[in-house]
């Protein structure tokens, strides 16, 4: 069982224009930088991207937005990106905004064979329009459906050839839930290690969810808000 690919180019074989993709990360933290670069390189278009954010103007998914490769974004927060806002307000870009917790849970549901679930988030708002409402214990909930993707791209800290992954700090965020919801899940890792090096008691993403893995390179890891104090 060897899921290792040489690089992003090989690991993205089969990704096509018009597909639905999931991309892990929160802001620019924990995003699959190598996969995004390769998507740009491939020049694919009409993509539907499920990602909590849309990057910034010149990094992350912002790169694909600039090149008009994205037809539709499914996200919870897309601030920090002027080009995005412009395309959305002008109608060039379809956008489905989803409460962050519902987004995470819908991805988890997709991976876990749960086709739909009830949540209170968004009841009484635009988000609930057209959705079934049901009361539980006197409280209103709306029915939300699972999300799945043709490809899910996640970024991990370390991984092995079985696809087991661990994440560093808050670079975890959406990566583990999206890893479960791709028909094909591609993991890029900072360090590819030998099976057995990762402690089996402390695996964040068990390998069963990952179909392809490669060691990424040239991580930029850009910081959006550098906030520090002085000693």
């Amino acid at each position, binding site marked *: 069982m060897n899921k290792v690919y040489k690089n992003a180019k090989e690991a993205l074989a089969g990704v096509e224009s018009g597909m639905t993709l999931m991309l892990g990360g*929160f*802001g*620019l*933290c*924990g995003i699959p930088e190598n996969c995004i670069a390769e998507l740009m390189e491939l020049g694919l278009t009409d993509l539907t991207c499920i990602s*909590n954010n849309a990057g910034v103007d010149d990094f992350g998914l912002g790169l694909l937005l600039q090149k008009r490769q994205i037809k539709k974004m499914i*996200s*919870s*927060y*897309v*601030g*920090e990106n002027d080009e995005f*806002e412009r395309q*959305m*307000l002008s109608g060039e870009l379809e*956008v489905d*905004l989803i*409460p*962050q*917790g*519902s*987004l*995470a*849970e819908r*991805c*988890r549901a997709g991976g876990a064979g749960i086709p739909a679930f009830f*949540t*209170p*988030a*968004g*009841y*009484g*708002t*635009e*988000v609930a329009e057209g959705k079934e409402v049901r009361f539980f214990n006197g409280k209103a909930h709306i029915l939300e459906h699972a999300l799945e993707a043709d490809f899910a791209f996640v970024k991990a*800290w370390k991984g092995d050839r079985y696809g087991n992954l661990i994440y*560093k*700090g*808050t*670079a*975890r*965020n*959406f*990566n*583990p*839930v999206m890893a479960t919801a791709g028909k094909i899940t591609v993991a890029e890792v900072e360090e590819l290690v030998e099976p057995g090096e990762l402690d089996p008691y402390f695996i*964040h993403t068990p390998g069963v969810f990952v179909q392809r893995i490669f060691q990424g390179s040239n991580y930029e*890891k*850009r*910081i*959006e*808000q*550098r*906030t*520090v*104090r*002085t*000693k």
Partner: protein
Amino acid sequence: MLNKNQIAQRIAQELKDGWYVNLGIGIPTLVANYVPEGIEVEFQSENGILGMGAFPFDGEEDADMINAGKQTVTLNPGAAIFDSSVSFAMIRGKHIQLTVLGAMEVSENGDIANWKIPGKMVKGMGGAMDLVASADNIIVAMMHTNKRGESKLLKTCSLPITGVKCVNKIVTNLAVLDIENGAFRLLERAPGVSVEEIQNATEGKLIIEGDIPEMKLNME
């Protein structure tokens, strides 16, 4: 009249020992600077932190350790990191005792609007809709009026709402108010602010009963 730090300071007086607290972006973030002595609270950041600490020292910042506002942060001893689905399990499952967030508008029945200005601004709701739909204890931190001097405490929200009948308390630059039976109840005045000024700045129904005390801030 309070400045932003004083609003945060007043909200911090509401904290209780042992609480888990989610702070939104903006004024709410400042609340962390004013935790009263003798109590311990843990801050949750919805991108996956429990036990969020101070900003890192210059040079020690880590791109892989940010809060929900995308700011570099540190962890306190006893912190835990988790994924987004677990984070919102905590929020939806009512494991967080207090949520503090900003708002563009609040209505007298407790509706809140803070995610969208149709045709102008659409940054998205982020985690706000999950938070306001689930939390039992929500404090809004905001200016009493907008930049054009118009009240943000309304009969009905004019902007698309984030949640329905969910706000419990509001702390503004002018006052502390509770939402009670479809009205704002005035609890405290900011130092130097009169009941009349508050009344004038409040469009929604305002209940004023008895003497309204001036709020106490332990300013150094």
